[in-house]
């Protein structure tokens, strides 16, 4: 290659670069921009959220949305530190229920009941997670109501001649068949700090054992965790141990999901949010979801549902007018539709047309839902029912402690602060 051609290439590259810069300048709107910063922990949704807000920006030329992501593990710390120092975003993604309260109590957020009218068209299951506990006002725009069920590998089910089980007996029979064929029936594990996944397993099984009315009984104090129905739910989870992977006590969430995604295990007890991640990690995986079956074939199958989180307006934002426009968009049916299409988990609003078959299945299941007991009901103050459940559940499944003991420990922990609504 001669010197000349190198120079020419460089020159051409330079010209191209300048052209690109010029393009950038001309694409900026003529009016002064208002940039709304938005913080989120859902790093895995970055590309999808970007596309959604590109559509918003195209329709609202005066407003730019600058999304910044912090990994989940550091998010709460970063947000609380920033808010304390007055350097927070305009809009913050907020965790639901109990985890929202410290921000509300500290006065870092504005109530949105008046300013975001679209909130009125959202179902209560979605709004519950964004309510301030003391004043009942809404401090965020919820985006999703995930529910829980049994993800299953359609290819494995077809190859083994297994139908979606209609009763618990069918379910156990299917597990036995899979095990005999050398396939791990249910991938799960909660070692190394991922015991929340086992709690979700109890959430999958729970409603079909203790029934849909149990949540209200717990909230009004008619029932406690020591109720035989709750103990029975724990027992049923422990009964499934033979169908869990070998060495279940030492397996963590990541390993368990890999077993399912890689086709080594036939089922996975999980929440809706797995849909998108399963798909992106193995686009070839053919899977769907079904509600955990009850004892009777004809029974209506209830599933645990909860509000995943919301987007709230930071009180100290200097940019509230534009931020409220963004929040109003996030509460709209249009956003819900894009959210469902882009991310594949149930949006907060139900007035959407669903294209993804797994999501359609999930939306169908969520019609018979009951609040995810340990999260919706008992994560308001520490110690939570979850902290006890997550700590002791491996020991219960392994037979080191009785389900009754775990239930009693959960009750003793929440009894230190939980006052039933009479």
């Amino acid at each position, binding site marked *: 290659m001669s010197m000349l051609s190198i120079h020419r290439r460089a020159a051409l590259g330079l010209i191209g670069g300048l052209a690109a810069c010029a393009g950038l300048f001309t694409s900026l709107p003529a009016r002064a921009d208002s940039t709304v910063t938005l913080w989120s922990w859902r790093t895995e949704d970055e590309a999808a959220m970007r596309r959604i807000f590109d559509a918003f920006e195209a329709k609202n030329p005066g407003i730019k949305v600058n999304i910044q992501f912090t990994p989940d593990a550091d998010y*709460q*710390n970063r947000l*609380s530190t920033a*808010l*304390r120092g007055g350097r927070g975003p305009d809009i913050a993604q907020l*965790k639901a229920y*109990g*985890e929202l*309260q*410290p*921000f*509300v*109590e*500290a006065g870092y957020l504005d109530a949105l009941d008046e300013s975001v009218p679209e909130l009125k068209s959202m179902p209560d299951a979605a709004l519950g997670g964004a309510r301030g506990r003391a004043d009942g006002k809404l401090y965020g725009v919820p985006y999703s109501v995930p529910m829980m069920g049994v993800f299953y590998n359609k290819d494995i089910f077809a190859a083994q001649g297994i139908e979606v089980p209609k009763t618990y007996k069918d379910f156990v029979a299917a597990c036995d068949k899979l095990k005999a064929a050398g396939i791990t029936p249910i991938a799960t594990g*909660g*070692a*190394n*700090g*991922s*015991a*929340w996944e086992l*709690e979700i397993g109890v959430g999958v099984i729970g409603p079909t054992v203790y029934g849909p009315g149990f949540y209200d009984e717990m909230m009004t104090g008619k029932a406690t965790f020591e109720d035989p129905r709750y103990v029975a739910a724990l027992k049923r989870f422990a009964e499934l141990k033979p169908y869990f*992977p*070998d*060495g*279940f*006590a*030492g*397996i963590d969430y990541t*390993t368990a999901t890999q077993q399912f995604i890689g086709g080594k295990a036939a089922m996975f007890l999980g929440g809706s949010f797995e849909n998108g991640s399963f798909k992106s990690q193995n686009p070839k995986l053919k899977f769907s979801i079904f509600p955990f079956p009850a004892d009777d074939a004809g029974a209506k199958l209830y599933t645990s549902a909860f509000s995943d989180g919301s987007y709230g307006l930071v009180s100290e934002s200097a940019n509230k007018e534009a931020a409220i426009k963004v929040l109003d968009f996030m509460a709209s049916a249009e956003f819900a539709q894009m959210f469902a299409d882009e991310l594949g988990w149930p949006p907060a609003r139900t007035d959407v047309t669903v294209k993804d078959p797994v999501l359609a299945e999930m939306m169908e299941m969520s019609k018979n839902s009951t609040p995810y007991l340990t999260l919706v009901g008992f*994560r*308001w*103050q*520490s*110690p*939570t029912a*979850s*902290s006890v459940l*997550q*700590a*002791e559940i*491996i*020991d219960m499944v*392994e037979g*080191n*402690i009785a389900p009754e003991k775990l239930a009693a420990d959960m009750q*003793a*922990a929440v009894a*230190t602060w939980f006052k039933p609504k009479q």
Partner: protein
Amino acid sequence: MIDRRRKSSLKRTQQRMAVLFILPALAVYALFVLYPLAMSLWGSFFIWKGLRITEFAGLSNFSRLFVFPSSARLYGALWHNTAWFFGIMVFQNGIGLLFAWLLFLRDRGAAFFQSVFFFPAVLSPVIVGALWRLLLAPGGVVEWALNGLGLHQGSLTVLGNSHTALAMLVAVDAWNWMGLPVLIYTAGLRQISGQIFEAAKLDGAGNARMLFSVALPLLMPALGTLTTLSFINTFNQFDIVYVMQGVQGNPSYSTDTLVTYFYRLAFGAEGAVGITDIGLALALGTMLFLILSVGTLLMLRFFDRRTVQL
């Protein structure tokens, strides 16, 4: 007379200069050590609502530590830290002493083995923890090896078992820092005059007798240093638990330590969710500070008294 006065004024200017030179370091120390320490002590006397200090609470945060449900976590963590400390004393410093003694007896290749023992200490505990987590996982190398040797059957779940998890973490920690006692003890042994060992040998002492009756009393300063260091390190134990078992000290809080409990309270992981209890966390932090300072002082005094001077 004049001479002395001049000398004392010179001394005074020197002292003044010294203070001046210390000031920058002192300022940095005050800002980054004393101030946070004082602030956390101050904060432990208040009720925290969410992330803000609200009202004065006196000693109620401290008394709350000793009441259910916090008491269960506190006593559990205290017990685990104590067990960890004794585990380290036996398996790290005890075995380290034996290794050092063997290396001392057989001089050839000592330097090589010393570096072999010291090698893991080069690695961060986070890496060591992650490494051993992989090795000890079901389907991991350790399981494969044990099954192959016929010492164990099926899958290995020592980290998921609340009866064995803590012992495993202590073993990993001991493995990580084994080189330190070997290094310090060999250095200590080399400083003891050879004549002493020769005299003991002439008196008919065997190797074991020489170790326990002759070398060990003379190694008191080394033992004191190691014990104090181990005490401080084990009561501050966090990284290995965090990496291998998560901040909840799974399973069933069987590997929970004072610092993981502190972390959960301060950063909102105690309820397995982001609910903080900063007042309680600061009270726990203050208590840990007291345990460590008093414990360290007592240990230093104990070993100082037992140091044999020849």
